[in-house]
């Protein structure tokens, strides 16, 4: 155990900090759930890529810098401290990217990864269906294998940013005789393919952040299959592991929120209850704990260990922490909380309510911990 950064890591932090200071837009960008904001965020992804910061852990050949996970954490810390824009391509960068590294062919990696890192291709995740939410093995969207392609028919829902995105990674049923986990496959599908209809769905904040995707006789070439045919469940579980385990929500995000919350406490010090102050202190502690746990996890991965079902603990911890911090901020803002001018906390509060739902609901995570980490009998 050695809890000091190397001098190279210290230099890297400084380099990132300087670069961000020079490049982060001074005014916040519009929401990436509306067209104008989406385009502005894509532009920002391109700027990031020019600095080679699209995804620092990826090999240079794919637009990365070959950094370690510790350096990625440093990058994230500087990124959130600089209040840099949200990552409109988070599905591509944090979910599909690592999955491609694990399951993609060399040709697929070379084809897709650089365009993710550069922001040229923005990805949506198309897994959920009206009848398959938590119970993802109930997926019914069908992909029939013809000679050299798959033909997709069916419907996906709740797909974030799919209204404006370029591609989706789509979990479909390729073997109709196998009804549950077996018989699924992961396909990479361009959202402008013939036969695709996209219907926006307004999210809690009013923006069309979700999409329903209808597939009507959509043809994609067979080399768009990611991982084994009928082995899509295992591919999806790897993606979900990255999502819950390490990548999707780095600690810096919550440390920054905790810091803002403490600052808000200072601004409202004259009317702050002991309860709220204690809550903010606990939130600060939990954000720190999440940071330490993540450094520990990253270090274990760097030593060659693999993550197991304990990643489910992460997802519960950060999502409930995020909700608590925003609830406290709403309490502090009190009568002003509903106003547009407080929209950073208000929007944050709304989005924090989604945290315990997406990426596998927290109830599902608790089921996983109970049965797979603790070894309790399945119900």
């Amino acid at each position, binding site marked *: 155990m050695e809890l000091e950064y190397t001098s190279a890591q210290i230099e890297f932090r400084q380099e990132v900090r300087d670069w961000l200071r020079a490049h982060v837009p001074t005014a916040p960008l519009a929401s990436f759930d509306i067209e104008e904001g989406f385009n502005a965020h894509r532009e920002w992804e391109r700027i990031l890529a020019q600095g080679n910061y699209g995804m620092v852990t990826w090999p240079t050949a794919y637009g990365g810098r070959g950094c370690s996970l510790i350096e990625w954490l440093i990058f994230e810390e500087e990124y959130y401290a600089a209040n840099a824009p949200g990552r409109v391509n988070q599905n591509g960068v944090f979910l599909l990217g690592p999955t491609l590294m694990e399951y993609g062919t060399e040709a697929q990696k070379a084809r897709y990864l650089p365009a993710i890192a550069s922001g040229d291709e923005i990805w949506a995740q198309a897994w959920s269906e009206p009848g398959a939410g938590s119970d993802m093995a109930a997926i019914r969207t069908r992909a029939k294998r013809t000679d050299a392609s798959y033909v997709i028919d069916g419907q996906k829902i709740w797909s974030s940013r799919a209204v404006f995105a370029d591609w989706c990674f789509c979990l479909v049923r390729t073997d109709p005789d196998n009804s549950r986990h077996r018989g699924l496959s992961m396909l990479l599908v361009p959202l402008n393919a013939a036969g695709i209809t996209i219907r926006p769905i307004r999210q809690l904040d009013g923006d069309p952040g979700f999409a329903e995707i209808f597939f009507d006789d959509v043809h994609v070439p067979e080399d768009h299959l990611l991982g084994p045919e009928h082995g899509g469940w295992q591919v999806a579980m790897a993606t979900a592991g990255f999502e819950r385990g390490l990548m999707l929500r780095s600690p810096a995000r919550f440390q920054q929120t905790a810091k803002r919350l403490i600052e808000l406490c200072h601004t409202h010090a004259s009317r702050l209850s002991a309860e709220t102050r204690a809550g903010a202190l606990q939130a600060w502690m939990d954000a720190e704990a999440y940071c330490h746990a993540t*450094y520990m996890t990253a270090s274990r991965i760097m030593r060659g260990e693999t993550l197991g079902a304990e990643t489910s603990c992460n997802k519960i911890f950060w999502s409930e922490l995020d909700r608590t911090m925003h609830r406290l901020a709403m309490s502090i803002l009190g009568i002003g909380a509903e106003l547009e001018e407080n929209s950073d906390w208000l929007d944050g509060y709304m989005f924090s309510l989604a945290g315990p739902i997406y990426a596998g609901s927290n109830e599902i995570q608790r089921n996983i911990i109970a049965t797979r980490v603790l070894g309790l009998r399945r119900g």
Partner: protein
Amino acid sequence: MDFSLAEDTKRLAEGARAFLTQENTVARLRQAEQSSGLELMPQIASLGLLGIEAPETLGGLGLTAVESAAIAEEAGHVALPEPLTEIAGLLVPMLVHLGRGELAQSVAQGHSAMGIASPLCPFAGHARRQAQVLIVTPRRVALAEPKDCLNPPRSSIDPWRQLARVDLEAVGEVLASDEAAHEACQWLNARGAVFTAAELCGLAHRMIELATDYANTREQFGVPIGSFQAVQHLLADARVRLEFARPVVYRAAAALAQIDLPRRDLLASHAKLAATDTANLASENAIQVFGAFGYTFEADLHYFMKRSWALAGLWGDREFHLQRLDAHVFDGGAAIGPGTSYRQEEKRHD
């Protein structure tokens, strides 16, 4: 930067676990009345565990506070009655720090029964057996005779803790005073908080395990109760808390060697709070899973639960640590936010 336990540390902890699990069974815990709580000391000493942090020149293992924390966690896991954590993590390093190498060596070899007390821990355990008590206050560090400093024994809810309040002003051989005593006392308090926190993590872990085993065997409505989600989620919640307490404890253990004292103390407080809250949640949820059986002496749970209550108050209770953290975070100008958790820091060399 590498925040993982070294292979050697893991092996050491595994060895300690194997030994402690075999020797300190629940059957033994049931024999509190017939035991001094010190029977295992010779074996513990011969394994070298009391001298984890003592330098090799004094016959110690020459390891760090991280290894002490790992061993403390194992001691908690079995609710060990012997004062392993106290001697290995507090007394021996403190005596070494004060330049009393020979005495440290004798204590580490299990030859001298010595207790330790400070304002944050004014009770000596194993009260009837102590030959000496090291009293550490911000003004003075002194080695006192039991007859001069120990009050009549008091009974604790934990049958294994034979406590006596220590008169912190008692006469004794003065080993340090003023600035040196102040520094030693702060150092001791931080160590006490961190290793107690590690023990609490071990206890929480064990309580979750006990409740899991029970839930898999106890049947109601024709199925194991552990198959009910309401039961599963109680234990999952405790496990989540534990998953985020252990890293704080190890972070704090690594910081015990720092010269940035406010940060060392801040981390010690955080560790103690995180572990205390985890143990509380684990015990409350575990007893719920056990039902009425858990509300008895028949179930094993209560030994672990009661130890955790006892440790919750030691080396700074919740209120103490919350107040200290509150002052740091709200008024102390402590650097907070992303990138501040591992600020470059120098190590002290004792």
